[in-house]
Every structure is written in C-alpha cells, then in structure tokens.
C-alpha cells in the first residue's frame, strides 16, 4: 500500500540524531510490548491474523508519524488480539479478564497458505540470473508489499539470486490467500537512476526484490 511507512527518498524529516549510550529499551513498557508481541505469536495460529507489517502499515499516516516505534507495536499486538476475539475491549479497559468467558484455545494452523518467511528448499525455476538487466514493475497493490515505491519503473542489474522465498505480499485485508514461492534477487540500482543528479555518480542502492516485482529491461 502506498502509505507513509514507505519512506525511502522523502525529504523533510531533519537530521538523524543518534543517542549516546542508548539503552535497548527506553521504558519498561517498551520491553514488555516487545516481549508480548513475541510471546503471543502462537495464538495467531488458525486465526488468520493479518501480517504484522500489514497491521503496522495500516495505521493512518498521521498517527503513524505521531506514534513512537513501540507504540506502533502495541497497536499491532492489541488490534490482532482484539480482532480475533482473544481479548475484548472491556478487558483492555479494566485490566481484568472477563470471568464469564471460556479460556482461549490454541488452534492448529488452518492456513495452508503460509510457507513462512524463510529460505525454501523448493525447486522453482529462476527467471533471472546475475547480470540481467531488470526493470521494477509499476505495481501499486493495496495490501502489503516489499517493493519500495522508489524503485518502481527503474532499471537495475541483478547481482545475486538469494534463492526461493514465499512472497510476503498480502491482499487488502492483510491475508496471503495462496503460497507464491519465488526467487528473491539482490538488484543494484545506480543511485542516479533513482535520484537523478542529486545522487553521486558511481553510488548505488541494492534492493532485495521478489521475482514478480521485476520484468526484463
């Protein structure tokens, strides 16, 4: 989806501003949100939780920019739990579990679609190989995608085939209706192809792109 999370190339955000001796978590609640997000993962099985990136990207842009990083994560974990009925708004309001509710069950994975995130040992033919010139297709899906806007329509060169991974794109509801394993390539774009004269000649940006994001150039 074309929203604020896809930030590459934007102006106006000011200096980067690193912090000396930064703690891993600045507040106790940040660590708790991080841990909760990790710990509740098994409750998503069989409940068709939208992808976590999709959920973060669905935050309206004004709110996205106003929230801190872990506030977004809290939104993500709370909305997943609320959306699948594992936690109710009343429970979040009171901080107490509803005593009348039956305890939630861990479900078997019902989504035959998910091959997960990792490298797959699947024999899928590769359309491209190192050295090929490719153009990033002009795609504007309404769901989650890993093709950043700044490469669309731009030409680069495949430098490495990273192997087969499941496409992580979702539909507009945050779901992956089917497995789409395909090759992921490291594609090198000359910086001037992306940014014109603002970039230095000779500099480049390497982007990891699933095969269906690309066409021969």
């Amino acid at each position, binding site marked *: 989806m074309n929203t604020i999370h896809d930030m*590459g190339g*934007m102006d106006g955000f000011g200096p980067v501003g690193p912090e000396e001796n930064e703690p891993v978590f600045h507040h106790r609640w940040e660590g708790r949100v991080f841990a909760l997000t990790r710990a509740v993962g098994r409750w998503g099985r069989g409940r068709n939780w939208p992808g976590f990136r999709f959920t973060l990207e669905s935050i309206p842009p004004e709110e996205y920019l106003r929230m801190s990083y872990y506030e977004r994560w809290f939104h993500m974990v*709370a909305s997943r739990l609320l959306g699948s009925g594992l936690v109710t708004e009343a429970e979040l309001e009171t901080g107490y579990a509803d005593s009348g509710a039956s305890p939630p069950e861990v479900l078997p994975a019902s989504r035959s679609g998910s091959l997960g995130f*990792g490298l797959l040992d699947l024999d899928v033919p590769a359309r491209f190989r190192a050295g090929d010139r490719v153009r990033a297709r002009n795609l504007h899906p309404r769901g989650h995608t890993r093709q950043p806007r700044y490469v669309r329509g731009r030409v680069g060169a495949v430098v490495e085939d990273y192997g087969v991974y499941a496409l992580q794109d979702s539909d507009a509801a945050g779901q992956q209706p089917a497995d789409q394993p395909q090759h992921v390539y490291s594609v090198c774009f000359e910086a001037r192809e992306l940014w014109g004269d603002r970039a*230095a000649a000779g500099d480049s940006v390497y982007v*990891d792109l699933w095969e269906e994001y690309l066409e021969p150039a």
Partner: protein
Amino acid sequence: MNESGGRPVDRRGFIRDSAVGAAAFTAPGKMMTERTEEAEVHDAHGHEHGHGHGHGHDHEHDHQDVPSDIALRVRALESVLIEKEMVDPAALDEIVDNFENRIGPQNGARVVARAWVDPDFRDRLLADGTSAVGELDYLGGQGEHMKVVANTDTVHNLIVCTLCSCYPWPTLGLPPVWYKSSAYRARAVIEPREVLREFGLDLSGDVEVRVWDSTAEIRYLVLPQRPPGTEDMTEEELAELVTRDSMIGTARVTPPPGGGA
C-alpha cells in the same frame, strides 16, 4: 467516550480510563481526544498509585511519578494475557533479558574480529554470510539469512530498512531508535553521504557508496575495515574495538587510544 471528566477517579478507575486508550489505538481517529483527557487524569492522580512488584492484579506501573498512558495500557494488556494464561510472565522476562543483556553488537563484533584475523573465515563470510555467521552460532530470529558486505578503501556500505526496521538481531541486537527513525529511513537511500557526514564520516568522491535496503528476509552486516595500528592485537582485543555503528556502516572502526600495540 471517556467517563473520567465528571466523577472522582480512584485507582481502578484511573487504570481503566487509561486502558480505554488501548482500544482507541484500534480506532486511531479518536486518539488525540483520548490522550488529552487522559493527561488531565494524570495530572489529578499521578501520585496515588501503588509501587509493588510482580504481576497479576495489582496493576503496578513503572516507578515514575506520573506513569504514561501507554505504560498503563501495556500493563493492562499484560495483566489480562497473564490472567488468561495466554502468556507466561517468566517467558516475558526472559525475552527482555535476552535482548537487554545477551543479544547485541558484541556478537557481531566477534564475527568481524574473526574475519580480521582469519582470511579463510573472511572469504567464507563474504561468500556465504549465513554459513559463516552460523559457524559462530549467531543465526536466529531476524538473522536467519545473512549477507555480509565488506568496506574497502574504495567501497563504503550502509545498511537501512526504508520500509520498517529490518536489522540482524542475532549479531547486532535490536536496532537503535535512529535506525528506525523516519529521517534515517527516508534519507539513507537518497542522500547517504549527507547522512554519513552527520555521523562524522566525510567520504571522498572516489569512494563508492553502496546502500543496502533490507526489503526481504536477508539481513545485512557491514564488515568494517581493520584500523591501522592493530596488527599485534588478539581477536578478543579487536572485538572490543568494533562498534555497532561500524557494522551498520555509519562509522569506521577507530584505532585504540595510543595507536594500539
């Protein structure tokens, strides 16, 4: 929406009113008014709350004079999940402890130091990062598949995730706030040289800048250049020199004070 305006708010009521905001996160349009009302509640009741320890129904919060609304919302969610036996509080503690104390850039520093002293390892690391990092047992969540890119006299590499915050957790830990910031995500790809100058790295025009945007499931680590004057240092001493930022690409590794051995 929020009832707190017209009645006294006891401790339970305070917690509840704050937690209402958690639901408001799922309807973001309402959030600003919620927050304003909560701020008023905080002003009136910020000092009345318990300071016990542990989990469960006490709803203790951080030892702050005025707990933030988000801290209370998180506490409410955690309490509910524990009460429903959906999460184990000890497991939560362990996750936090791991990332605060065990998983961090000291791991990546050992990879870099090994590559500096062992040319065969360096070759393997650059040819197949996943396999070589695996030799040191630093693969895992958000770092299952690794690509290591080497800085040289003529090439400088910089890692970013423009779409979110992808980062090699097992070797570098969780990313710093600046790495996740809008400014870094927006600028690293379009004006990396300006960003690097802000970090104190002024690269000459004959150094090629390569920016790696972590858009898929491969995670990146920069192999910085070994600084001069470190020829006699041991692998362990070298690892002490390697900083997090040098492995993201926003810094060089600097020689030890006094020029090393």
